[in-house]
């Protein structure tokens, strides 16, 4: 993947050595950016990931230890020690793990190591959902109505009644779709607050929650921003309304909701709002401002993510910009290599997140092994994955296995090519949501572009597995018989004349 606007390589690499503080597909993707910039790399890995591609391909690889694989990736001291031992001068945190941990950014700063991302102050500002809301509201950008009182406060229940149902309980330190629960009635509120607090404490180490008005029928539109010390630009919006359990499963750029001249004005407005927020925060590096977009065309600020996001490839493919390379440039004190006026988006890109789950059975997480993998390929096809042959898929990490991204000249073509690519993708040994994704893409409500975050629930009756017809069943059972090792062995052992006769019937 080449950035159309890439500069000639500098005579000196931007950093002496960069440590990738993550794993899986994103660690590999960041490695590719480092390689394109000729920067030496260090991968860190927990024992269970020792055979993963990023570990095999990085210039250096160091094992990390911890009570659990996730725990190892959250061990700030261990990671910084490795940086110092290896002469690392910058760290790319990717997404998740320590990417939005201001303490990590600060600790690196104190040891003279560059954190590839915004400043600790900005991470803190945007990391707290309550302070970021207040900051954004002060910039004149709309935010959803909410309750700022603590649950124990005497005025709380009255405030809840005034706000009206449905509500959403959100963890103040949460984000990325985690730490959110919907409440439809007063009766549910108490137990939901309890579970929400416990989850918030467990996942974010901070049990503060707040309550916001919930918009059951809205779109999730987010804007990609990029900043350096001089300017902040935007790279358009991404449509992320296709979600299950508040987690995105299909994303695209541009959003079909901004069609036509009126749509263009709305797009401009929401993108400028995102730039205004980032500018006011003196934002540097890549970031995303997430909005709620109502059927009436109103938008409200939801949160700002101060990191590279999972779905960044759709923006990269439409704008021809390598966002991770830009992050590295900015972190090294250079300016971003594009300007707002020389950005030329083209075509349409869609991303599908392939997840280890039984999507037709309430998305139950699945475990298994990568027995065979054959990635789809071709023009406009991008498959970001850290999968490898023989890999055990366990409950240790997030169920997302890989991202399939398609770029085409129109949305219609992108959908057609995505369905084709999903059908061509072979991943045997673990249940995935592959067929489920195809059902969504085939659905008229998706192709019309008229959908919102309730899509998955609304059409649950349509998003079902196909039932084999008689011919398919025959083919499947025949394939089973002819692939069955025991049968193959028995047939080889059977002398030919008897093989031709088959078994004796009574």
């Amino acid at each position, binding site marked *: 993947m080449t950035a159309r606007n890439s500069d000639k390589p500098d005579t000196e690499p931007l950093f002496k050595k960069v440590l990738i503080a993550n794993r899986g597909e994103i660690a590999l993707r960041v490695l590719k950016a480092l390689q394109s910039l000729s920067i030496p790399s260090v991968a860190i890995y927990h024992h269970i990931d020792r055979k993963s591609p990023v570990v095999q391909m990085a210039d250096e690889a160091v094992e990390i230890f911890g009570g659990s694989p996730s725990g190892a990736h959250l061990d700030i001291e261990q990671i910084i020690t490795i940086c110092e031992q290896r002469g690392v001068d910058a760290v790319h945190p990717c997404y998740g793990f320590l990417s939005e941990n201001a303490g990590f950014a600060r600790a690196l700063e104190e040891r003279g190591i560059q954190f590839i991302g915004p400043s600790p102050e900005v991470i803190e500002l945007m990391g707290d959902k309550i302070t970021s809301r207040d900051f954004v509201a002060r910039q004149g950008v709309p935010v959803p109505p909410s309750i700022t009182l603590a649950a124990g406060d005497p005025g709380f229940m009255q405030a809840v009644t005034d706000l009206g149902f449905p509500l959403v309980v959100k963890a103040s330190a949460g984000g990325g779709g*985690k730490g959110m629960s919907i409440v439809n009635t007063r009766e549910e509120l108490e137990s939901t607050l309890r*579970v929400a607090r416990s*989850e918030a404490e*467990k*996942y974010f180490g901070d049990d503060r929650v707040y309550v916001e008005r919930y918009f059951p029928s809205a779109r999730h539109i987010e804007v990609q921003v990029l900043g350096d010390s001089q300017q902040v630009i935007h790279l358009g919006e991404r449509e992320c309304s296709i979600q299950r*359990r508040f987690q995105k499963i299909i994303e695209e750029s541009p959003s079909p909701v901004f069609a036509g001249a009126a749509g263009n004005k709305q797009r401009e407005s929401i993108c400028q709002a995102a730039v205004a927020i980032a500018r006011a925060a003196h934002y540097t590096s890549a970031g995303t401002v997430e909005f709620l977009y109502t059927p009436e065309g109103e938008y409200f600020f939801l949160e700002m993510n101060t990191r590279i996001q999972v779905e960044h490839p759709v923006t990269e493919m439409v704008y021809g910009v390598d966002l991770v390379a830009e992050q590295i440039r900015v972190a090294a004190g250079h300016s971003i290599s594009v300007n707002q006026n020389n950005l030329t988006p083209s075509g349409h890109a869609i991303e599908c997140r392939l997840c*280890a789950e039984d999507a037709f059975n309430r998305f*139950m*997480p*699945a*475990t298994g*092994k990568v*027995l*065979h993998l*054959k990635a789809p390929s071709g023009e406009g096809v991008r498959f970001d994955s850290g999968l490898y042959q023989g890999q055990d898929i*366990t*409950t240790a*990490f*997030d*169920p997302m296995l890989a991202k399939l991204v398609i770029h085409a000249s129109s949305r219609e073509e992108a959908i057609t090519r995505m369905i084709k690519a*999903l*059908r*061509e993708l*072979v*991943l*045997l*040994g673990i249940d*995935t949501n*592959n*067929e489920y994704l*195809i059902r969504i893409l085939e659905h008229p409500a998706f192709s019309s572009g008229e959908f919102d975050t309730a899509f998955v629930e609304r059409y649950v009756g349509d998003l079902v597995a*196909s039932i*084999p017809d008689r*011919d*398919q*069943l*025959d*083919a*499947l*059972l*025949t*394939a*089973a*018989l*002819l*692939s*069955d*090792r*025991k*049968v193959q062995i*028995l*047939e080889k052992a059977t002398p*030919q004349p008897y*093989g*031709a*006769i*088959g*078994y004796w019937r009574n």
Partner: protein
Amino acid sequence: MQPKYRFSETQFTVSPLKHSATRLIEIASDQGGSHQVNAGIRWLDHCHGELTVNGVVRHIYAVQDDQTLHVHMDGKVWQVDIVDEFSDAGGASDQAESGLVKAPMPGVVLDISVKEGDQVEEGQLLMLIESMKLQMEVKASLSGTVLLLGVDGVGASFDKGAQLVNIRPHDESLESGRKGGE
């Protein structure tokens, strides 16, 4: 040989009848009925083959993992279980003990709210489990006494289908497996 396979809760007997240039294969279902197909396969590598059934050609990918065959065909993945004729064909697990709570997915125990001997009500919270960052409440499917906790304690991990809790129903007549003579 009469190999048996299970797909989508139906058991099939798939028997090779003739093996020459193409094969004749008989497929019989436990729902009744059987028919025959002409088939052949040309393996392109260890798991990629060109399958022909009654003249229709398909590309398939197939891998065997213990007793399960994973097949990619017609743009999707299918799983067929090999039925071992000499073990209990089983079928759908009979939750004859209706007070038995099995893990719907592999995971870890976060919290246990009951102990053996406790009286519980239908719908009562028994434990909190987690898998892939998804928390789930495990509730009693009926009222009764907690007979057994199938996990060692908080922090214990378990597989899909593992027995988490067994509850003896209050109503003795609901107990199964006590048909006369046992």
